[in-house]
């Protein structure tokens, strides 16, 4: 825990100055504000009664008090400014670091985690760190100063009553911690129910149209109602118990107040010498202190709970930062020009050690050849692409481009030689034009339109409310097919010597696909290309068709040769026309 804390604060190191200033301003502001009751007490003592007010002493005292108050307010304000600055800048850097880190971790790492989980580390966890650690720290710090300060002031007024106050304060603590414990279980139950209810809402309200279509509303409502009522019942309890804390600690503070009042009054009477002498003014400042003294205790116990959360969050964030990065590319060769000749030799690869996938894979591809890969789901088709683009590295064996192992080139230069369209479409929040020119940010509007026309996307784009300037996103209502067209247009804008099409047209209707095919043929002219397709019609004209099964190539040849063979491929191919 300490290590994690230290590490979070190492992020704050560049802003040490704000940290130091926070401490200085806090100390100054708080001690000034703590001195205020003493002065008030003194002032009260100067107003002993009718005709006995000492104005000569009161006047400078009141002026001093005014100056102190103003100065204290100023310091408190400066302190908040510094804490804010410290927190926001630290958090900013931490976020930027984690995001940048995510660009350097192996794809393997990202594939293994859900996207929601990782993005929640960048956003939510860091937010918790900001609230809990940085702002919590200032709260903790000011709390401690306040407690120490009031203790000192109280001791200077009356040692015995101070001892009583110090002895009574743990009461407040005990009450608070008892309540927290009692509430904890209920809170857990409530958050579980909340999770179930949100899950239900996501599933059913999220598919509301289906629910309507099946006239399922009545039944869905009954299930929801059950969850909702249970949540209401548990929530009432949990909320009530947690809201017991404040009145209870307030009650304990009231007790302390009464005890101080009693002892102070008796002390002022002088009839109980062991309490020590007390003036009315001193009593009123003591009362003020006893109030201030108990308050930070409540705050600090809250801070500890938040601190634990924050440390847990920080550990999650640091686990990303500690992840091993992809190997360094510096000093490697840039792949500038390449003919597109490729070879796989003796490649072994698997995602997990206990599940063998690709074994002893060999393939020679001549420049400009069109390679098609077919086979059932999970046979390793997409893995070949993961290896080619170095998203993953083979366990053994080598893949070379133009006779040189791809590990000897920089990743960026290698990847820039490939144009890639994946089955899983990816559009980001931005205009259509921005999405199309993602790989060629300098493309002119004419070039973008040209690319869109080539893939027959121009028609629907034109019909969008703002044409090419319409902002689109993953869920902005574009159909899967339309998104796929945009992804294809993306590579039309580039001029890559090698192409990878992984189920690139799976969501596009046949007629449009036929038309795009022409654009593809043109694009693939003279380029080495890899095509993975579900619909065998799209790959018939390939130079080489690889038929894969369980990580191995089981058949290899042109369409006609494979049909001749009458093997697995022929079987797959024929099944699509049986009628």
């Amino acid at each position, binding site marked *: 825990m300490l290590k994690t804390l230290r590490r979070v604060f190492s992020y704050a190191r560049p802003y040490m100055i704000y940290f130091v200033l926070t401490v200085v301003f806090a100390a100054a502001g708080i001690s000034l504000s703590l001195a205020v009751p003493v002065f008030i007490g003194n002032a009260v003592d100067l107003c002993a009664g009718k005709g006995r007010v000492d104005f000569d002493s009161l006047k400078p005292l009141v002026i001093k008090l005014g100056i102190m108050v103003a100065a204290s307010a100023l310091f408190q304000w400066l302190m908040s400014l510094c804490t804010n600055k410290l927190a926001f800048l630290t958090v900013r850097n931490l976020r930027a670091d984690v995001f940048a880190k995510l660009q350097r971790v192996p794809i393997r790492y990202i594939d293994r985690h859900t996207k929601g989980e990782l993005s929640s580390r960048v956003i939510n966890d860091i937010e918790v760190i900001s609230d809990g650690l940085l702002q919590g720290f200032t709260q903790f710090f000011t709390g401690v100063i306040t407690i120490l300060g009031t203790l000192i002031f109280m001791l200077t007024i009356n040692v015995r009553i101070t001892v009583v106050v110090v002895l009574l304060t743990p009461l407040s603590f005990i009450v608070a911690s008892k309540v927290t414990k009692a509430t904890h279980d209920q809170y857990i139950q409530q958050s579980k129910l909340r999770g179930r209810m949100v899950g239900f809402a996501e599933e059913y309200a999220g598919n509301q149209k289906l629910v309507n279509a099946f006239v399922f509303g009545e039944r869905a409502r009954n299930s929801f109602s059950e969850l909702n009522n249970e949540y209401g019942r548990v929530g009432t309890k949990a909320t009530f118990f947690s809201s017991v804390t404040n009145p209870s600690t307030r009650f304990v503070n009231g007790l302390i*107040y009464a005890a101080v009042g009693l002892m102070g009054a008796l002390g002022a009477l002088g009839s109980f010498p062991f309490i020590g002498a007390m003036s009315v003014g001193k009593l009123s400042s003591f009362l003020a202190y006893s109030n201030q003294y108990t308050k930070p205790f409540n705050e600090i116990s809250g801070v500890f709970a938040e601190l634990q959360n924050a440390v847990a969050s920080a550990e999650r964030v640091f686990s990303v930062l500690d992840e091993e990065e992809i190997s360094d590319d510096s000093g490697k060769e840039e792949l500038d020009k390449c003919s597109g000749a490729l070879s796989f030799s003796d490649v072994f690869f698997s995602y997990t050690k206990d599940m063998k996938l690709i074994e002893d894979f060999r393939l020679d591809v001549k420049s400009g050849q069109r390679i098609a890969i077919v086979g059932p789901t999970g046979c390793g088709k997409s893995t070949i692409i993961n290896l080619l683009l170095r998203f993953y590295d083979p366990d053994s064996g080598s893949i070379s481009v133009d006779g040189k192992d791809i590990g000897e080139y920089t990743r960026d230069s290698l990847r820039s030689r490939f144009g890639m369209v*994946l089955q899983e479409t990816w559009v980001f929040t931005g205009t259509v034009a921005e999405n199309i020119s993602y790989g060629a940010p300098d493309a002119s509007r004419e070039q973008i339109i040209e690319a869109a026309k080539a893939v027959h996307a121009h028609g629907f784009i034109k019909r969008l409310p703002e044409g090419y300037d319409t902002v689109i996103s993953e869920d902005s209502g574009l159909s899967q097919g339309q998104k796929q067209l945009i992804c294809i247009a993306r590579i039309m804008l580039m001029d890559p010597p090698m192409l990878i099409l992984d189920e690139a047209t799976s969501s596009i209707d046949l007629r449009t696909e036929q038309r795009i095919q022409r654009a593809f043929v043109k694009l693939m002219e003279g380029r080495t290309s890899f095509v993975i397709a579900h619909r065998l019609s799209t790959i018939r004209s390939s130079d080489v068709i690889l038929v894969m099964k369980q990580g191995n190539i089981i058949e290899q040849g042109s369409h006609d040769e494979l049909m001749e063979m009458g093997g697995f491929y022929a079987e797959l191919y024929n099944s699509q026309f049986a009628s």
Partner: protein
Amino acid sequence: MRPLLRFLKNYRKELVFGPFFKLLEAIFELIVPMIMASIIDKGIAAGDTSYIFSRSGLIVLLGVCGLCFALTCQYLAARCAYGFGTELREELYRHINALSFKSIDRIGTSSLVNRLTNDTMTVQNGVNMFIRLAVRAPFLVIGAAVMAVSIDLKLSLVFFAAAPLISAAIFFIMRKTVPMYKKTQQKLDRAALLTRENLEGVRVVRAFSRQQEEIDEFDEAVDELADCSAAVGRISAVLNPFAFMVMNLGIVAILWFGGIRIDSGRLTQGELTAFTNYMTQILLALVVLANLIITFTKAFASANRVSEVFALEEEENGKEVPSADADTMVEFRDVSYAYEGAGDHSIKGLSFAVRMGGMLGLIGGTGSGKSTAAALIPGFYRATSGEVIVGGVNVDHCDQAALRHLIGWVPQKAVLFSGTVRDNMKWRKEDATDEEIIDALKTAQAWDFISRMPDGLNTHITQGGRNLSGGQRQRIAIARALVGKPEILILDDSTSALDYATDLKMRQALKSDMADTTVIMISQRTTSLKDADIIVVLDDGETAGIGTHEELLGSCDIYREIYRSQMNEREGRKDA
């Protein structure tokens, strides 16, 4: 906000008594300084020890009562808030279930989910805090002021100068910061969006070597976020020190003028102490109030978002019941439809008729209007012009539940729900027997793989059906629509994940098992539609051709083009 108030109706008692008990607690809290003043003025001055003891005891007693009142209030608040929240969600979910598709489109399902959960919970919390604190804080301010007035009217003028000053500061700071908080939240949302998109597109980002640009864009977003948060922080940081200063300067003024009044005998020393005490109490109450305003602003924003859902139109429901054995089961008469906000019609002047037990094929490119046409049949959307007639009745006048009970619908995206296979199969017919379910699964070619699963019909399906392959999901989704033999079956391009052999077997089974069912089939494969009584070719919403397979081959260019492209493949097979 106003439409939500009716959900508080059943909690009038809590709404009245909750704040009332809080009020009592606050009153007791206000009396304490008075008692302390009397201890000072009477007890100490007169040297009356027993008076001091009894008064101190009274303070403790007041504390005990205060605690009881406060707990009562907290309990009533929790009960009211959660009762309100539960009823609100109940009604909101009922309303959501009654919404027309047009209304659903307007808000979007993910936003509906958010409003049903997060927003109602925020409002619920707002109600809770309202009962607990909204009365207490202003009352403490007013009460302290009243007490001050009762002690010394002239001296209490200091209060009336200080309190409005602080209130004004709170008001101005809130007015400035609330929109800024919203903006900060937007900046945070943007950073979250960038992160999510980056992770989802990680392969594309790296394939296009755009990591640095992505980092730069994110840096810019977090810079803006930091700037925004800092700007809000700068302003809201003023509040506490300012309130502290005004209040304490008020105390300074009280000391000075109080001194004058004590000197002239119109105020006692103890009363002066009480005065300063009230000043502090006002300060604390106002600060709580300021924080409360933030909670309320959030609650109001959420309440408005929930109200927006309530303002959406429910689906119009007619009374007529469509006949299950009309000669013409589905008929379109010159039907056009335009989605809300869309510039162009999705369907223009579509007319056709399908007899009972017949089959209609819909074919056309992406965005040609096929799905829209199918969605008009169960009345999901209402024709902008023209008539859609199902079972002899215009769907506009149909009882929607009766209409949809006739129909089995298979959506494009096969979504299943968490639960067992059996649970999912009972969607169309709640009391379906296992026999009926298995029949449907057999027709949909799904029984094969389900019977082989160790748990059979009890096999658990995870949310969305992610533990099944696309093809399996699709077959179960088809079977789900077949349970109870619907009069009309709509297949919206529902076989795309099936291989050709399975697709064929399923079509044959449909024909023999569901002979009386009228089938509306959307497909991209001409082979799937060959047996249809009537095929409509759609192109950009317009009817490009209508007729049987043979007729269309002769008359419709587009149909011929689609057919040829698929036949070429067949030729290829023959060549080989």
